């Protein structure tokens, strides 16, 4: 099975031949890959060298924490890759931005209101968690639409707080 794996904007062609042989950009490696007791910790032996990594799955990417560094990886199989390049891909820079709670916490302040124009980096909401107040900022300019929470409300992780259009 062939995959195109993008690590920090650099593409690697990875071909999984069988359980123990992987070809990366034309170089064949003998590997032994184990999940450590079913956890997102993985052990990998590559030509005898031992590596251990955490692999976290986010929305569309994988994050690989290995040897004290974090790599963001996007993996698509060859067929999907061909389809994407045929139709012209890349995320479209439009639509609503949903501000989601990065962690559970208490809404301390919402310095913006519905319909307010905001600039990139403006503070949208202050969320308190673990006794620290965190300012959640706008990733781009726009107009605030639909504030879905109130000051004093407890929110769950990933709960949508408000959106920007």
């Amino acid at each position, binding site marked *: *099975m062939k*995959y195109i*794996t993008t*690590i*920090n904007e*650099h593409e*690697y062609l*990875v071909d*999984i031949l069988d359980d123990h042989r*992987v070809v*990366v*950009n034309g170089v064949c*490696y003998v*590997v032994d*890959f184990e*999940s*450590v*007791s079913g*956890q*997102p*910790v*993985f052990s*990998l032996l*590559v030509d005898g060298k031992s*590596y*251990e*990594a*955490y*692999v976290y*799955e986010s929305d569309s990417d*994988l*994050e*690989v*924490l*290995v*040897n*004290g*560094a*974090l*790599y963001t*990886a996007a*993996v698509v*199989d060859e067929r999907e890759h061909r389809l994407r390049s045929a139709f012209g891909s890349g995320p479209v820079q439009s639509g609503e931005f949903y501000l989601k709670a*990065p*962690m*559970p*916490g208490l809404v*301390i*302040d919402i310095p913006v209101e519905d319909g307010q124009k905001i600039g990139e980096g403006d503070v949208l909401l202050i969320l*308190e*968690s*673990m*006794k*620290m*107040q*965190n300012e959640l900022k706008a990733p781009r300019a726009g107009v605030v639409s639909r504030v879905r929470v109130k000051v004093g409300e407890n929110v769950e*992780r990933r709960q949508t707080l408000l959106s920007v259009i």
Partner: protein
Amino acid sequence: MFNKVLIANRGEIAVRILRACRELGMETVAVYSEADRQALHVRLADEAYLLGPAPSRESYLRSDKIIEIAKKSGAGAIHPGYGFLGERADFAQAVLDEGLAFIGPKPSAIAAMGDKGVARATVAAAGVPVVPGTEGEGGLSNDELLKIAPEIGFPLLVKATAGGGGKGMREVHNLQEMPLLLQSARREAESAFGDGNVYLEKLVEGARHIEIQILADEHGNVIHLGERECSLQRRHQKLLEEAPSPFIGDDEELRQRIGQVAVRAAQSVSYVNAGTIEFLVDRDKNFFFLEMNTRLQVEHPITEAVTGVDIVKEQIRIARGRTLSITQEDVQMNGWAIECRVNAEDPYNNFMPSTGRITHLILPTGPGVRVDTGVFPGFEISPYYDSLISKLIVFGQTRAEAILRMRRALEEYKIVGVRTNIPFHQKLMDSHRFMAGQFDTQFVEKRFDMETSGQARKPIPEIAAIFATLVAHENTERSTHVIQRNERDTSNWKWLGRWERLHR
């Protein structure tokens, strides 16, 4: 004299205090919130009592309930740990009023040092140098502070009068941005300490944060256990501490001079028990009193490692009215110790707190390694409390050995379920400036970057690509298996039988 101690805290520090009590043959009483029923301190203590719901205000800050439990369980003393009721003079007084021992300083000393304005005025009167700022005046209004600010000069710091741990603290660079920062500092101080008062202090640039551990008994003996270097901070929260300080190094004359000033500061409030005097030290080795922490510090283990003194045991000894087990002449700093605070924070996402259940945990062990923690696999890191989940302390004969040992220990340390700042510490251990001891309190925020610092390790993107691809590949295979299995969940005959029974 007491033989049973109630520990009015949670997490790693509750466990740390429990251990000291155990070693002294004392009985222990734990208190806990509904979120902490399974916590380690509850499981290790001889007795444990519920305080209330998870939020601190309804549990660990319920001083009335804690004292009631102490009396009911027959505990003769209360150890507050740090945070929560750790520096509350009213609590210490209430404990004494009930005829219980308070393992900490006298209420008057907590009050004098707790109001940072009063503290500065008191030690200044005793001849201890202080950082210029609003002296001895609590409760100034925003208008008054805005008027005084230009006299002190920018940049300056807005600090919470009742503060600590960087909460309610803001850096101000000009008068224009000050009103907003004052507002947010007051808001944070109000929510953290229930007191929105703030004061101003000049920001000493290029400064190091060096603190002195003090021990004092009721018989007039006051000694210091040398310094701790705490300059590596982010948002005024300490992240890594070491003892001794590489900046003081083998300047024994400077060490003793700061130590003696610290002793004098403690004596100015008739201090008893363990405490810490924090100093800012500028490039020219001038030092200024910053504040006194009238409690056990998070970073006390590094001093224990280099001096061999068990600070918590000394605290209990002092509270029992005995003399210190050591004199100033006995105190020798040997070797080097480093502590990394392992927080549930994602260093790749602006140190956002991370919550969740710890599913897998491997603690580093081996020569020269100590881990103080209150967590275990299955433990839930909740948003209610501090993000500190453990302290990793290493000891080496030299600073170089300690750094190499810390690198090794950080590599061994595996926590799954929440994101931690372990990668940050690894980067720090690899950074040339850290290795050379060239850093100040601004280092982490101004000159450290997760992307570029720590060049010592060769990047291995190919290996990361193999990991990612194999994980993605396994996921795809598993999902196809699942679909196939669901299709042939049971035999068609069984399925038909069930279907018929349903429609009978």
